[in-house]
């Protein structure tokens, strides 16, 4: 059992506060991803959990026990670093066993664990090599192996895949997923890549500027983003935002069109932003379109196509169409902005979503 709780955790480097009070509870066995743009404090937060940074204020508790003053080595966690941080002068075997030796574990047990982890991560043949003699993916597996042999209560990953090429990244994503399945430990995974977050996480914590923007299941974040930032950050390509004013049960766009929205809590006349994901927009076959797009760029990917262009109001908009399209550059096409349920309405001033009906 390893439950992790953060209570109003803050971090300041000198006079600069970079984490502004984060509350978070992670259950046993969960795979949680911290995601956010770079510089938002993900690593700092993770390193505070690991015990590599002091906590300025608030409390971190593992299984109900405050660990603020427990040294990193004694928290029972293991971490995989972005640069792997493999000891370059030690063989793979020594890299894996160094931590166990420091814990004064019996030799036989160390060997057993190292061999086990090596088999699981397909490192058996590499045990006598040095990190310098390994490929990127192999180094990554060694770094993970070093965490695995410790049998930690919680695994911490800090952007472990960002040094790999795209193909390997997909492969390693699957492997880490499998690892989680097999071990069932709690894992916290930091990335700035929302695709990674969406594909791997049980729950995602979206961070911005040292604040927790939203914490929830991937599809909840996708379907019900709590604010403009999360809406824009989760999903690719990015959600389209159009300015408008709230009217009862609908949004009046700048172009004058009125589109229905299933939300409540807005006041008539309130400035709002209407958010629609590109994949929810379609070409309007009949009736009056919700908007008209002057197409300036077309990307044909074969299985799907993207249209980019501007509306009459001057706002930019992207559309994803299934399959291939006959539309060409310079065309003006009428659009249907999805179903009312797929439309998200945010308060323009605060950025918060207007609660759906």
């Amino acid at each position, binding site marked *: 059992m390893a439950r992790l709780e953060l209570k109003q955790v803050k971090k300041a480097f000198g006079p600069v506060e970079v984490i502004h009070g984060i509350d978070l509870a992670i259950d046993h066995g969960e795979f949680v991803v911290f995601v956010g743009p770079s510089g938002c404090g993900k690593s700092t937060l993770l390193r505070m959990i690991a015990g*590599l940074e002091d906590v300025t204020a608030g409390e971190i508790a593992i299984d109900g026990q405050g660990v603020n003053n427990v040294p990193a080595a004694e928290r029972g966690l293991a*971490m995989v670093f972005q640069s792997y941080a493999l000891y370059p002068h030690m063989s793979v075997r020594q890299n894996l066993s160094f*931590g166990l030796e420091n814990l004064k574990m019996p030799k036989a047990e160390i060997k057993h664990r190292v061999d086990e982890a090596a088999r699981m991560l397909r490192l058996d043949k590499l045990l006598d090599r040095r990190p310098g003699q390994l490929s990127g993916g192999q180094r990554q597996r060694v770094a993970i192996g070093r965490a695995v042999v410790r049998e930690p209560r919680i695994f911490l990953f800090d952007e472990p895949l960002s040094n790999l090429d795209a193909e390997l990244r997909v492969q390693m994503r699957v492997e880490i997923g499998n690892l989680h399945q097999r071990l069932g430990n709690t894992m916290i995974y930091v990335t700035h890549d929302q695709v990674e977050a969406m594909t791997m996480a049980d729950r995602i914590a979206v961070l911005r500027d040292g604040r927790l923007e939203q914490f929830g299941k991937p599809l909840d974040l996708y379907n019900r983003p709590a604010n403009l930032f999360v809406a824009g950050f989760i999903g690719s390509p990015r959600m389209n935002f159009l300015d408008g004013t709230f009217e009862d049960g609908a949004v009046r766009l700048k172009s004058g069109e009125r589109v229905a929205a299933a939300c409540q809590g807005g006041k008539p006349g309130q400035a709002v932003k209407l958010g629609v994901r590109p994949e929810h927009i379609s070409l309007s076959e009949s009736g009056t379109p919700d908007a008209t797009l002057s197409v300036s760029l077309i990307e044909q990917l074969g299985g799907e196509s993207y249209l980019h262009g501007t509306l009459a109001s001057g706002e930019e908009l992207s559309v994803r169409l299934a399959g291939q399209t006959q539309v060409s550059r310079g065309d003006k096409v009428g659009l249907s902005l999805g179903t009312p349920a797929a439309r998200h309405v945010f308060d323009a001033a605060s950025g918060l979503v207007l609660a759906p009906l």
Partner: protein
Amino acid sequence: MGTGDVIRFLTRTRGRGRLHWSDWLTYAYLILSLLVVVLPIMWMFLSSVKSPAALVENDPRILPYTQLTVPSPTGGRDQNVFVHTRTDGSTVDVAFVGPRGVNARVYELGKPDTVFEVPRTSLARKEVVDPRWENYTEPTLGSTQSRTFNFLRYFWNSTFVTVMATLLTLIVNAMAGFALSKYKFRGRDAMALTIVATLLIPPTVILVPLFMTVSSLGMLNSLWGVIIPTIATPTGVFLLRQYMLTIPDELLEAARMDAASEWKIFWRIILPLALPALSVLAILSVMWRWNDFMWPLIVLTQSEVFTLQLGLSTFKGELNDNMHYLLAMTVLTLLPVTLVFVFLQKHITSGIANTGLK
């Protein structure tokens, strides 16, 4: 690689076809400087196995020639052998018995009974190549009165000082470099600055107080008195700190997650990774300590604790006439550094060029 390539390689110039006049000048300078720099040392190596007579005469031949001698048939001193050229041009080897006016009394080798007289001008010394190793063995091992150069003792003292001082220098400076590069603490930058500032304080201006400090610690005439004051070199701290700054912090953090103590991180992670810088400092330290003269001269006054340098300088003062011994002992003294240099030449020059420190 064909012959053409070889020729092109050997006559390679500054991208143009023929040797430019500046190339000629370059090689002339190089050859000249080779003479000035290497010739004295080479000549000393070669001369160190020559006989005293050859040294006194400044025998210009490269190899160590000595005059052949044969035992005297009457049991006196060994007799020198000469080549006698007869009037008809034929030659014969003769042993020299003694002078008589402008003539010399000699006998043909193997016929000691028939002594005859020949003009001295018809005699030329009969010489053979014969390295005189006694130059080396007599002062070091011999039982002669010349044994004032207790080579083995001095060598041991020098080695002890060099090895101990280097080991301590490495450890002590690496620890300080580690603290100054990988920890944040109050006064760190001030401390680093102080250490760099002491680079500017010449050790020579604190001779007297240093002597008194060492003397009050009872370390006079002790090798430790030479070793200890030299181990906290600002150069070393500076060098190692700069190098350790390039070791990524994540490695240390990984080790901390791996339950390593700070000491273990230092010993098992930092030291192995700082090996390049450590080896530069080790080479410098060996050079400094082996060649040290002034400080040992002040601290060590009894010949049992002399280092090689002290022994050699004393030997020079005492035996200025026995050049053959002095040269041999000089060769012995410079041999260790020379061997080190021959094997680590690349390391040393690039290390010093990169750090710019000595």
